[in-house]
């Protein structure tokens, strides 16, 4: 099998989530293969971003990790425990925040939390206290005795976060936590997830919002058509994507003369010079760093240099390249 440049193949030391060969086929052996030999690892106390186009297998992966779905094949270990063999013990320390939950319409927010707390053997009085604290923490203190059918989308999302935190989990599986929220809501979630990571939680985060993932996650996994196409840190993936591609320097300057352009074109490694309204774009050979020579040549030729930047490969570039332009 040809080496896959975007897959981190070495085992991470002390990974909290270890997924190996995960396969899920819906509808029997002749059914639809939603996941095909998915393998990745999530290091402890970090936020792991999980990306993929619609229908790529993100939610199936999330639901298997959350013990909602049974995999067809493969192994999952969470905190060293096999998810199939020790599912009850794993679930004691797991928190799941699904994408869209309508909840029991006639129960209040607090009643939901008391009900879910009962599964962890938490006493009723303690559950009520913990429920109140959590609802206050997620900004639902005023709505804890309101029936959930009166909750807005954003309030239900907050309730989802509260129920996910009920058992003070070590590992949190979150599916689109900020989808459908207004900018304040999204900001709230971003800050809260960052805070949870600082508290030592390991967070598996699936999101359509690439900016959000870029802000929160050091490591990401990208899935496409049921197969993992990339797993690594965003920086490494970006670097590997850039490898082999020409580097473009964007120069912002005034007073660029024809002589200055010729001086730049003569620099070793420069393959193209293109004047722009702001200054000039200089293309160099892959892997070369000619920014110092370019700035020196321009200054010597009498130009007033304001800025010089190189193209950064964004997570969006990465995503679009690896998923053949699929929607996130």
């Amino acid at each position, binding site marked *: 099998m040809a080496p896959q440049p975007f897959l981190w193949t070495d085992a991470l030391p002390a990974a909290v989530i270890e997924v190996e060969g995960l396969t899920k086929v*819906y509808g029997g052996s002749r059914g639809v293969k939603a996941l095909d030999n998915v393998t990745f690892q999530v290091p402890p106390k970090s936020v792991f971003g999980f990306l993929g186009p619609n229908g790529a297998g993100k939610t199936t992966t999330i*639901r298997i990790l*959350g*013990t*909602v*779905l*049974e995999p067809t094949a493969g192994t999952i270990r969470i905190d060293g425990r096999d998810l199939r063999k020790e599912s*009850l013990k794993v*679930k*004691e320390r*797991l928190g*799941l925040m*699904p994408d*869209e*939950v*309508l*909840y*029991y*319409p*006639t*129960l209040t927010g607090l009643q939901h939390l008391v*009900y*879910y707390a*009962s*599964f*962890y*053997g938490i006493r009723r009085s303690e559950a009520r206290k913990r429920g109140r604290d959590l609802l206050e923490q997620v900004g639902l203190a005023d709505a804890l005795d309101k029936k959930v059918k009166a909750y807005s989308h954003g309030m239900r999302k907050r309730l989802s976060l509260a*129920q996910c935190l009920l058992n003070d989990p070590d590992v949190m599986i979150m599916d689109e936590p900020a989808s459908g929220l207004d900018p304040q809501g999204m900001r709230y979630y971003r800050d809260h997830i960052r805070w949870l990571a600082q508290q030592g939680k390991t967070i598996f985060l699936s999101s359509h919002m690439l900016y959000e993932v870029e802000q929160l996650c050091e490591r990401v996994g990208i899935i496409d058509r049921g197969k993992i196409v990339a797993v690594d840190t965003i920086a490494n993936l970006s670097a590997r994507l850039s490898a082999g591609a020409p580097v473009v320097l964007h120069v912002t300057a005034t007073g660029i003369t024809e002589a200055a352009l010729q001086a730049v074109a003569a620099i070793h490694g420069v393959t193209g010079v293109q004047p722009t309204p702001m200054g000039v774009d200089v293309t160099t050979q892959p892997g070369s760093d000619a920014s110092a020579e370019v700035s020196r040549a321009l200054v010597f030729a009498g130009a007033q240099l304001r800025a010089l930047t190189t193209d950064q490969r964004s997570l969006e570039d990465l995503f679009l390249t690896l998923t053949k332009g699929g929607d996130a």
Partner: protein
Amino acid sequence: MKLPGFLRGMPQVAWQEFLVNLKSVRLIIMGLLSALLIVGGAYGFTTLFSSGGGFGGLPPVVAWGHQAYASNGSHVAVVWVSDPYGAPVAGRSVEFTNRSPTGGEVALGTIPTDANGFARLDVGNSDYVSATVRAGTFTVGTGVVFYPPFVNFTTASLQGDFKRHGRSDGLALHVMDLRGNPAAANVSVNGTLTGSVNGYGYLLVDLPVEQSNVTVEVAGEAETFPTYVPGDSNGAPFTSGPDFVLVVIASLSFLVISIFAIVLSFDAVSKERVQGTMDLLLSRPTSRTGILLGKFLGAFGAVALPVTLVNLAGVGVITAVSGKGPTGSFAAAFVGVSLLLIAFYVLMQLIFSTFAKTSGTAVLFGVLVWLLFNILYTIVVAVVAGAVFYYDAAGYFRFTQVAGLGNPTSICSMLVSLAAPASLQGISGTSLEPAIPGAAAVVWFVGLLALALWTFHRKAGE
């Protein structure tokens, strides 16, 4: 106490399911409907069937026929129309028809009853006339036979349960003289004067249980005829009494109970899926077996509680109205087997609800299950029996005897009828040995439970 791993989550899910159902509008509606049908039915059927004579409800109107003679010797047919308690019914058309063999069946005329309820027609020399009168949807008739009178009056009578207390010990008498007018008659029962007829010639007297002699006396002439009031031991048990009412109520109750169980549990699993709460349940420290059993126990309890209360109330009403309760073991079997029926239907709904992806599909499955086991099954059995055993009458008979074992509702009916008093078993019973429906019930229950668990394990998260 910590439950074994495979039952984790069961008590919590059961209690939640029970509470949510108990507070639901659908439970209130079905509870009221059940109470109306079962308790109301118990009252109505007890009143209807509890008379010693069986289906002995009194007719809404009575046509009292008498022979009379005009001064020229011509035959006059006289009909008095009243309700059973002696209130005359005016303005009703009485159709007189000749039934005498010599004249043939010929319409003689239609006479409306007068203000006092009487209709009279000179029928010439006809010996036998019938008279019919229509009241609402009801048509009553009487015959008037002209025979040489022994006394100077004629008497028509109606015996029934006039006090609506379960015994036909009332005798309504109507006495006319031979000119066709109400007679001044005194009436004695077993030699004791009990009263005189009123201005219409009507009197209602009480009769003692067993045989009596009733004597009507008009102007010194008397006529005596025997009457008989059955005692408790002489009633026809298969068409009367509290046990028979319970048979009728059990049939009605099983129809309602199956609907009740379906209405409360048809979306027990699918609604969790639609709400997204199934994912949250499965991700807790719960087992799938625990969740499914919790769902079953919660829904079962929520149906069983009101149904048992309503069933007990039904038995209580039968007891209160008829003065004595159904046979204890029969009543206990009715209440107990109702619980089994609830369990069957709840389990079936859990299976289909696990398959259903939407509430609409879940509703459809519920309707289909009810139709299948309450209407379609009988038709299918008849069609299969007719097709397979067309030339084999004995095979046809034996097949229909065991076909009920494939229907949980039929099994429950068999189990109840096995506990019924011997005199009733012919109505809804079975020729199978008691162990066979019992074993079939166990097989159904275990089979449904196993299928529900298997389905839930495979499909709950999908």
